[in-house]
């Protein structure tokens, strides 16, 4: 049962991720990306990580993608206004994306050595997650919080009209 669900969700995730790239209309791309996030959230639930699943939906599908949609709607992108890209640019993009793929494949190659060991039914429950985050990984957690704070302050500074 779980395997079938995993396969169906994986199919949806990959198909909609491909459609993000292939869709002509940027609005459709964004909506497919939202669908991808939902499929990935479903995979998290299968891994017993409800908190991660729901946060994935709140943060990515519910906030970031709405902002994407917002920006694309305001820019009103369509085929006529799409800037023409030269052959050289396309070639550079292909090489860069290919290199990224090599890096990803290289990093995932050794991943099966440390496969996930589910320690129990309650692994992804919020109590356990909170205990792990605030006891074992407190420093990385706080450092990433500072990173987010810096990004927020930066965004506010950029948004200000008169920077001295």
């Amino acid at each position, binding site marked *: 049962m779980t395997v079938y669900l995993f396969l169906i969700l994986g199919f949806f995730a990959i198909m909609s991720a491909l459609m993000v790239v292939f869709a002509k209309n940027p609005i459709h791309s964004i909506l497919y990306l939202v669908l991808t996030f939902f499929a990935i959230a479903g995979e998290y639930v299968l891994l017993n990580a409800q*908190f991660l699943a*729901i946060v994935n939906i*709140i943060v990515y599908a519910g*906030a970031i993608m*709405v902002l994407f949609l*917002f920006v694309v*709607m305001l820019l009103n992108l369509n085929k006529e206004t799409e800037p023409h890209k030269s052959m050289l640019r396309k070639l550079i993009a292909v090489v860069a994306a290919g290199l990224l793929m090599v890096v990803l494949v290289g990093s995932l190659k050794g991943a099966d050595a440390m496969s996930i060991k589910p320690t129990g039914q309650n692994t992804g429950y919020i109590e356990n997650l909170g205990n792990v985050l605030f006891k074992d990984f407190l420093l990385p957690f706080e450092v990433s919080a500072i990173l987010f704070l810096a990004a927020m302050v930066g965004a506010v500074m950029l948004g200000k009209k008169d920077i001295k």
Partner: protein
Amino acid sequence: MSLSLFILYKAILVVIVFLVSLVIAMYSTYAERKVAAFMQDRIGPNRAGPFGLLQPVADGVKMFMKEEIIPQVSNKFLFILGPSVAMFTCCITGAVIPWSTSLHIGGHDFALQVTDINIGILYIMAVTSIGVYGIMIGGWASNNKYSLLGALRASSQMISYEVAMGLAIIALVMSTGTLSLKAIAAAQTGWHWNIFYQPVGFLIFIICAFAETNRTPFDLPESDSELIGGYHTEYSSMKLGFYLFAEYINMFISSAIMSTLYFGGYNMPFIGRLGLSPNTMAILGLVFLFAKIFFFIFFFMWVRWTIPRFRFDQLMNLGWKILIPLSIINVAVTGGVVLFFHK
């Protein structure tokens, strides 16, 4: 409990919650007009049936019978998807609300809650945050500048107020120590309602609930004087009906959430002293919860016919410069109180 019985009971519960949401939303439209009439010293709808009680049915039939217009230039699929998403997201929230304690019938316990997930509050946050897609998709697919402006207003408003709402909920979760709605409702026995522990949080939450449901004084996405009808300008027939209906279901669900989170849910003080049987208690709890819900629905309407609409910059100032700092202070104070007085 056998699996087939479990599935049957859950299916019946889901259907009942769904139907009750629809019927209450239907009669909210009637109540809205009656409350408006009362506030403005009029009579209100009184032609269809006794006291105009069949007015919602007449309105529904009218909506179905109207000509359906889909603009030529709009994206047809997304145009239909918009109201469907709006309707879908407002209906699925009812799944995590504990309507009452459990009924004990024939040796089995039937909890009056569709599902008790351990992250119930976050589920509600997630559903409200994806609810904005219905409005945005519909507004964009209409290919009308007023619709687009309405959709942009709706989304920026909902994102802004979600932040303050989330922070208010964080303070609540800190004082109750759980994210499960069932546990939160069960903890508020007697006079231990969360409103007494989190008054500021409740104030922030109710303001954000008004903004999230696009009700007056925050109904800028559909402000008629500036945007004709806002995001649903191009909609006709039942698709318009779905948008309007979704607003009323949202109102019902947010009233239920406010009652559950801050006003004791199905609890009522002193009821435990009467020594009633658990089944009677469960049914009484249901009645109390619905009394609280109806009070909040009335409150929504009361505010609508009392307070004028905000300007959009005032709305943004209120959200970002007043509510968010206030809710952060609330979180800090709650943290201090929990740290120094409880453990």
